[in-house]
C-alpha cells in the first residue's frame, strides 16, 4: 500500500462499485422487513427495507426523508447570519463543528480574516465536540450489542461535563450558535479555560476504562471483528469520509490535508484501520479521542490574548460579492462542506450542505449484504449518523 493507503485499480470492470447480487439459497421464502422508522437502533427516524433469506440479508434499501425540512431552501430565504443557528440543528451531536464549517465557507467567499484567539477557541471547542461525538458513538455501539444502559451512561457522563462547558461559554448546551463570520460570538474567560483543563485531565482515564471494556471483551470481539468489511477502494469511490474512511486504511484527514484554521500548528497522529471492519471503526474513534486530548492540550498551552472577532467584520448589512466558494472541515462524522453561491444580495443564491452522514450511508448495503440481520444494527451503528443531517 502507498503512503496514502490507497492504490487506484484501473482494471476494474464496469459496475465494480455496485453492491453485489446475492442469490437466496432456494429453501423457503424471502422475508421483507422494514427496520424503522421507529426501530430503537436507527438513531432517529430512518428506515431500512431489508429482504431476508432466513437470517441472511440479501437486499437492503435505505429510505430517507422522515426528518426532511428543506433546510437549504429556508437558508436561501434568509440572510447569511440567520442560517448560523440553524446549522446547530444539522448534526445536533456536534453543533460547534457545524458552525465552524459554515463560518469557514463564508470566510472563504468573502476573504474574511479570523483573529488568533478565535482560531484557538475554535480548535478547542471543535475538538471537545469530537470527543463528545466519538464517546457517544462508542457508547451506542455497546448499547446496540445488548449491554443496555450502563456503558452508554459512562459515555454520557463525560459528554455531560463537556456540555456544561459549552453552556458556560455560549449559554446553550447543544444549540450553541457560537461562531460568526470572522471569529466567535463571545470570549472565553480564564476560569472557563481552567474548567476545560480540569475536564481534560479526567478524560484519559475515561478512555482507558472504555478501551479496556472494548479490547478485552470477548462478546464484543465476536460480534464486531470481521463484520461489515469495507474495502478501501470502494470507500474512496463512494465518497466515505471521516473515521469510517480511516478505518478502511485510507490516510485522509482534512485537518492534515487542508490544514484549515490553525491545524498545521498542532502535532497529532492519524490512526488507521487494518481490518476494515466494525471493530476497527470503533477503535479508530477511541484513538482519535486521545489525539483530540493532545490537540486541546497544545491549544490551551498556546492560546494568546486578543480579540475574538475581527473588528472589520461586518454582521449587519452583510452582502458578499458575487461568486462562489466551497469550504469543508473534518467534522467528527466526516467531511462537512458548505457550497455557497452569492449573487451579491443579502441571502445566498445557493446554499448547499455536503452531509457526511448521508454520503457515508451510500455503502451501507454493500457492508450488510450476506451478514446476519442482527449484525445490520451494528454495521449501521458503526457508520455513526445523525438524522438531522441526513435528511436536512
Amino acid at each position: 500500500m502507498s503512503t496514502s493507503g490507497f492504490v487506484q485499480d484501473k482494471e476494474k470492470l464496469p459496475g465494480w462499485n455496485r453492491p453485489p447480487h446475492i442469490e437466496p439459497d432456494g429453501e423457503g421464502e424471502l422475508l421483507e422487513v422494514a427496520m424503522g422508522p421507529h426501530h430503537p437502533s436507527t438513531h432517529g427516524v430512518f428506515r431500512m427495507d431489508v429482504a431476508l433469506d432466513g437470517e441472511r440479508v440479501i437486499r437492503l434499501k435505505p429510505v430517507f426523508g422522515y426528518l426532511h425540512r428543506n433546510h437549504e431552501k429556508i437558508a436561501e430565504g434568509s440572510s447569511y447570519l440567520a442560517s448560523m443557528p440553524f446549522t446547530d440543528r444539522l448534526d445536533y451531536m456536534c453543533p460547534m463543528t457545524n458552525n465552524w464549517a459554515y463560518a469557514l465557507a463564508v470566510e472563504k467567499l468573502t476573504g474574511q480574516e479570523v483573529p488568533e484567539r478565535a482560531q484557538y477557541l475554535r480548535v478547542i471547542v471543535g475538538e471537545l465536540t469530537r470527543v463528545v461525538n466519538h464517546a457517544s458513538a462508542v457508547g451506542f455501539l455497546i448499547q446496540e450489542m445488548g449491554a443496555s444502559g450502563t456503558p452508554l451512561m459512562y459515555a454520557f457522563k463525560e459528554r455531560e461535563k463537556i456540555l456544561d462547558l459549552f453552556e458556560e461559554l455560549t449559554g446553550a448546551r447543544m444549540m450553541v450558535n457560537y461562531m460568526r463570520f470572522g471569529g466567535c460570538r463571545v470570549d472565553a474567560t480564564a476560569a472557563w479555560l481552567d474548567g476545560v483543563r480540569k475536564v481534560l485531565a479526567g478524560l484519559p482515564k475515561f478512555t482507558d476504562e472504555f478501551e479496556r471494556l472494548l479490547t478485552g471483551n470477548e462478546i464484543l470481539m465476536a460480534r464486531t471483528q470481521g463484520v461489515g468489511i469495507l474495502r478501501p477502494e470502494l470507500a474512496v469511490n463512494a465518497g466515505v469520509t471521516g473515521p469510517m474512511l480511516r478505518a478502511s486504511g485510507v490516510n485522509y484527514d482534512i485537518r492534515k490535508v487542508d490544514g484549515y484554521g490553525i491545524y498545521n500548528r498542532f502535532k497529532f497522529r492519524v490512526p488507521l484501520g487494518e481490518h476494515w471492519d466494525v471493530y476497527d471503526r470503533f477503535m479508530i474513534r477511541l484513538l482519535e479521542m486521545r489525539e483530540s486530548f493532545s490537540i486541546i492540550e497544545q491549544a490551551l498551552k498556546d492560546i494568546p490574548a486578543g480579540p475574538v472577532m475581527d473588528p472589520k467584520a461586518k454582521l449587519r448589512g452583510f452582502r458578499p460579492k458575487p461568486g462562489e466558494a466551497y469550504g469543508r472541515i473534518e467534522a467528527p462524522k466526516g467531511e462537512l462542506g458548505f457550497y455557497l453561491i452569492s449573487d451579491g444580495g443579502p441571502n445566498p443564491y445557493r446554499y448547499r450542505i455536503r452531509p457526511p452522514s448521508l454520503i457515508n450511508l451510500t455503502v451501507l448495503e454493500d457492508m450488510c449484504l450476506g451478514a446476519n440481520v442482527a449484525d445490520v444494527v451494528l454495521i449501521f451503528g458503526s457508520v455513526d449518523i445523525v438524522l438531522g443531517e441526513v435528511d436536512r
Partner: protein
Amino acid sequence: MKTVEEIKAAIEAAVSGAGVEVIPNPSVSGQQSLRISPFHAVAVATFLRDDGDLSLDFLSNASGVDWLDKEISEKVKVTRTVTKTVEGVEQQVEETVEETQKRVVPGCLEVVYHLFSIAKGHGPVVIRMKTVNRSDQVGLPSLTPIWRSAEFQEREIFDLFGVVFSGHPDLRRLLMWDEFKDHPMRRDYVEPDDFEYEPTAHDEVLKRAQEHRAKLAADQGVAKA
C-alpha cells in the same frame, strides 16, 4: 496542482471534441470551474479519475443550482443612418444613439461537482454541466458509474431540482415521498395551498388564510351550482 487552464488543455487533449469552458469566479475564494458538455461528460469524468497526474478519485460534493430566465437590460450604442434636414437640405447622416436593449437569457438547471484527490491530496477541481432548459429538456448523464458517491446526491438533485440523470442505477426520489409532484428547490416553486386554520392569524398568514377561504368558497359555490 495544475491550474484550471492546464486541466482544460489536458482534457481537450485526451477527449477529442470535449468542449471545456473555464467559468471565472469573481469571489476571493478563487475556485474557478470547468463547464463540460453533457455529451462527453462520462469520458471526461473517467479521464479525470484515471489520469495519473490528476487522479481525482474522490467526488466530494454534487450540488444542483437553478438559474431562472434572466432579463438583462444593457446599454448598447447603435449607429444608424437617418435622414435629416440640415440647413434646408435633406441629408443622410450617420447617428450614434445609446439605447437600452433588453434580452432574456434562458434559464437552466446546473449540476456542480467538487472533486478531490485522496491519492495526491489536492483539490478542489470544480466541474459543472447544464441542461438545455428548465422545462422539457432536463436530462444530464449520471456520473454515478464513475464515482459511487454521486448515487444519493444525484437522487437528491433529481428529487429537489428535477434533473433527470441518464445512466443512474436507481433514480428515485430521496427526501420527498414518491407521490410528490413538484421540485421544491426550484426558485419558482410555489408551496401547495394546504393552509391549516390558525386561531390568531396575522400579517402574511392572515392574507394567505383569506385567500384560502375565498378560494374554498368559490370552489364550493361551483360545486353547489
